[in-house]
């Protein structure tokens, strides 16, 4: 009997070994996302299945990148502590500062001028009930990031606000993200519709969230 098992093992070894190795690789891949997904570990998200496809993923991210680097997104993800304004991304007039919570400081808090809704009129302050920059301990900088750097940052929970897959996907419909497509009079829109952006965003994430090569611009 012992010999028989041994024989069977020998004869099926290559196939089995391959299967084990493949399983391990898949498991490692899943674990990689599972680690990223730690904040949502208690909730199982069955809506989206990751099907790795590096080509489709990088292609989708190129679209995502054009939106995130547009003024409507990047102006509130500055490399410094002063938000940006305009299509030329100049420093916000009056130089309001980020503050610890991202909502400004002292008499210069975002909500002092930015109302819950857009103020009517050309170039008047845009509005949102939750207007703010990312907080000081999680700056989530877009300005100056290459496609590769930004892609890596977006899926790193230590740099993306502790978001896992589910929260990243949900973030496409966040109120402040949506505000980019309702920026108030006199401001250009992101380079594609919100629906097209959301589709590219989800495609990028669900095909493995691959980062473009370092040479990609």
């Amino acid at each position: 009997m012992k010999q028989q098992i041994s024989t069977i093992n020998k004869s099926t070894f290559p196939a089995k070994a391959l299967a084990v190795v493949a399983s391990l690789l898949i498991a490692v891949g899943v674990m990689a996302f599972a680690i990223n997904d730690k904040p949502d570990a208690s909730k199982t998200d069955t809506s989206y299945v990751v099907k790795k496809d590096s080509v489709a993923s990088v292609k989708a991210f190129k679209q995502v990148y054009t939106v995130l680097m547009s003024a409507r997104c990047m102006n509130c993800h500055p490399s410094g502590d002063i938000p940006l304004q305009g299509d030329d991304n100049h420093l916000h007039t009056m130089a309001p500062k980020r503050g610890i919570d991202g909502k400004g400081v002292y008499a210069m808090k975002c909500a002092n001028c930015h109302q819950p809704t857009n103020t009517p009129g050309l170039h008047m302050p845009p509005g949102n009930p939750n207007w703010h920059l990312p907080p000081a301990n999680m700056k989530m900088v877009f300005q100056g990031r290459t496609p590769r750097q930004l892609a890596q940052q977006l899926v790193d929970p230590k740099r993306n606000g502790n978001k896992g897959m589910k929260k990243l996907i949900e973030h496409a419909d966040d109120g402040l993200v949506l505000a980019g497509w309702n920026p108030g009079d006199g401001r250009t829109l992101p380079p594609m519709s919100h629906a097209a952006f959301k589709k590219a965003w989800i495609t990028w994430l669900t095909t493995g969230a691959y980062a473009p090569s370092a040479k990609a611009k």
Partner: protein
Amino acid sequence: MITLTVNGQKHKVDADPNMPLLWAIRDIIGLTGTKYGCGAAQCGACTVHLNGESVRSCVTKLSRAAGQQVVTIEGLSANNNHPLQQAWNELNVPQCGYCQSGQLMSAAVLLRENPQPTDQDIDDAMSGNICRCGTYQRIRSAIHLAAELQRKAMASK
């Protein structure tokens, strides 16, 4: 009808909820210390406190103030004796004076949140209040003096 509390007094205002709070304060309630400067939240002359925060009343809808606490320059102190007002008098800060009520209301938030501000803190807090006479140096000195007066007043209690 919108009810709001201004300087501790309840007011019922019969106006469009979209009316800027500034017009309700000045034209309906009759408190004209708060000034109209730019109408676009760019200059700070219209600054008042809404639940303690220094909002620009020219772009703040009356509806946002419904049921809330508003304080204008007239309500900053009982007898013009807020440390900032004392310091402003002591150092003759205003020139034309048009922006000064907004300057004081912004400075009051700074002093409340940071009783010992540095020059940088003052710049960070006051950079949204423009003075066409350029009294910025005196404003900065007066905020330092007010901080000192405030500390002394606290110490003597």
